[in-house]
């Protein structure tokens, strides 16, 4: 079984501090710590469990800026066999439609897969759109909101998924794209041995950096050396994937940000109530007068 796992490096939006917000109310992304989107990590765990049980291979892929290689190394630490970075300046500003186009073309190039896994959604947008849009472009079925993989047969999979107000059990033919909820599994810790082995894994962009200003290093040789040591993170650009530029990045994104407003905190018009018994008494009297309580 071959599983391709879509992962994303996301800004840690849960921990936004004051200095991250610029004075004009926009977000200074550079100041935000970048983390591995948790549900994607759970998706990788499910893919690894399939490999543990049935054999096969797990490939982790991400579309992002060069520094997104960090999450790919984490995928290798966790147990992924291969990692692929899809990176190009022309991908900047992509919305979910443009992102799913690039990802689906990369998946087609990697090819020969039984499962595509992804987290249900990424915490920076919470849209949950890239999974289904990628499945549509691949022409394969999707099962979103996965809670548990129940059974895998040669050509099908049985899955328990959340629905509004309950759950259902679905059986799908393969290949299928599966998006997973955070409680679907608990991601395994990194093995020290794998960290030691893969901490030096590098993308083409990172190898090119090494050769800069070093006339003794040739990129092709370096790449070959890393490939032979299995430390090369495959790096694909727009041209490598022969993509239509009009469908990538900002050009391929129908949604545009028209306006961004920082959240203005209305000046407190509220009545202060003392944090003591007397205060509570006053508060309760007011609520009773208004027939809200009592």
């Amino acid at each position: 079984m071959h599983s391709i796992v879509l992962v994303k490096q996301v800004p840690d939006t849960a921990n936004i501090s004051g200095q991250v917000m610029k004075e004009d109310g926009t977000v200074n992304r550079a100041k935000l710590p970048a983390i591995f989107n948790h549900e994607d990590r759970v998706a990788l765990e499910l893919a690894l469990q399939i490999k543990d049980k049935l054999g096969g291979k797990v490939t982790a892929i991400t579309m992002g800026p060069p520094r997104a290689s960090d999450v790919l190394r984490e995928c290798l630490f966790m147990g992924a066999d291969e990692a692929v970075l899809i990176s190009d300046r022309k991908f900047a500003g992509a919305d979910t439609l443009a992102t799913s186009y690039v990802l689906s073309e990369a998946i087609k190039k990697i090819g020969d897969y039984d499962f595509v896994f992804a987290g249900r959604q990424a915490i920076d947008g919470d849209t949950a759109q890239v999974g289904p849009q990628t499945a549509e472009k691949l022409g394969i079925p999707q099962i979103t909101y996965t809670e548990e993989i129940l059974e895998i047969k040669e050509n099908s999979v049985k899955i328990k998924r959340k629905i509004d107000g309950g759950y259902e059990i679905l059986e799908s033919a393969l290949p299928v794209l599966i998006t997973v909820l955070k409680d679907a599994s608990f991601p395994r810790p990194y093995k020290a041995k794998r960290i030691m082995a893969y901490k030096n894994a590098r993308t083409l962009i990172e190898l090119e950096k090494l050769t800069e200003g070093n006339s003794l290093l040739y990129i092709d040789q370096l790449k070959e050396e890393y490939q032979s040591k299995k430390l090369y993170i495959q790096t694909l650009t727009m041209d490598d994937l022969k993509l239509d530029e009009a469908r990538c990045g900002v050009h391929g994104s129908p949604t545009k940000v028209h306006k961004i407003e920082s959240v203005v905190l209305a000046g407190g018009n509220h009545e202060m109530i003392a944090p003591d018994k007397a205060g509570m008494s006053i508060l309760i009297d007011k609520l009773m007068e208004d027939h809200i309580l009592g």
Partner: protein
Amino acid sequence: MNKDVWVFIEQRNGKPADVSFELLSKGRKLAENLHGELKAVVIGSNVKSLAEETFRFGASEALVIDHPALEHFRTIPYSRVLIELVESHKPRIVLFGASVIGRDLAPRVASHTKSGLTADCTDLQISTVKYLKKDYEDLLLQIRPAFGGNIIATIITPEVEVQMATVREGVMRLEPLPQAVKGKITNIPYLQNEFDEVIKIIEQHRQENKVNLKGASIIVSGGYGMGSKANFKLIHDLASLIGGEVAGSRAAVDAGFVTADRQVGQTGVTVRPKLYIACGISGAIQHRAGMKESNKIIAINTDPDAPIFGIAHYGVVGDAAQIIPMFINVFKQKLR
């Protein structure tokens, strides 16, 4: 260009989802602004009476695809049917509930039709917009908090014909008309396709929602500031004393203090109770989006600068774990 507003009418076991009628209520106003028509898209089995219900919310036409194979929602046949309809009619706007079904279906349809799609909008408006020095008439403004709630973004899709958005249940107000409009039912045949059967439903279990936050007149809500699950019990104590429902912020849900079906906010439930008591909730925009229209809001928080105080009617600066027992004691005395 077509100026119609479509709402996908979601049904579960033949019962319509509230969010679909809420969207019709909003869609009616959008259609008026656009001088277009409001249309309902109903997919299912034996859904004629359901389709007629949409006239009570102002739909002038229901596009109905009625077939036994469509009894339960399945991604492939539903998206295929909807894609064909959108491609042939090119409505100006298509709205979906941001439910599990809507969030599964809408991106698939948007992907195929290359439409813009914005998830979890908290407001929708029609406006003429200048974008990159060009005027665009009557665009759909898709407004949603973004980036951990630190900003509110207005998204537009100026260059595409079909604008799509999803909206959570409870965000838009349910506004039935005093009298149903005289609508038209248009039956559209369903032509089965082999690929429709690629996924089979083996079992389905659904319970009526036990938690009724939307209908509660008093809500006591706790946040991460409650500190622990043990302290969160105070929220339950207070709620049962004053006849309220228990709720929580996303942070409280993530911390395991309270179950996800009780989450108030942009990605949870939107509520408008008579009284909302926010305990240890700082008041991120996503949370405020889900409760700011409450009649009276009491905020209890240790941080006097917490944004929740900005929308509160009464503010108590202090540790909710100490304030709530005090409130409970004083209230019990007064009841005697």
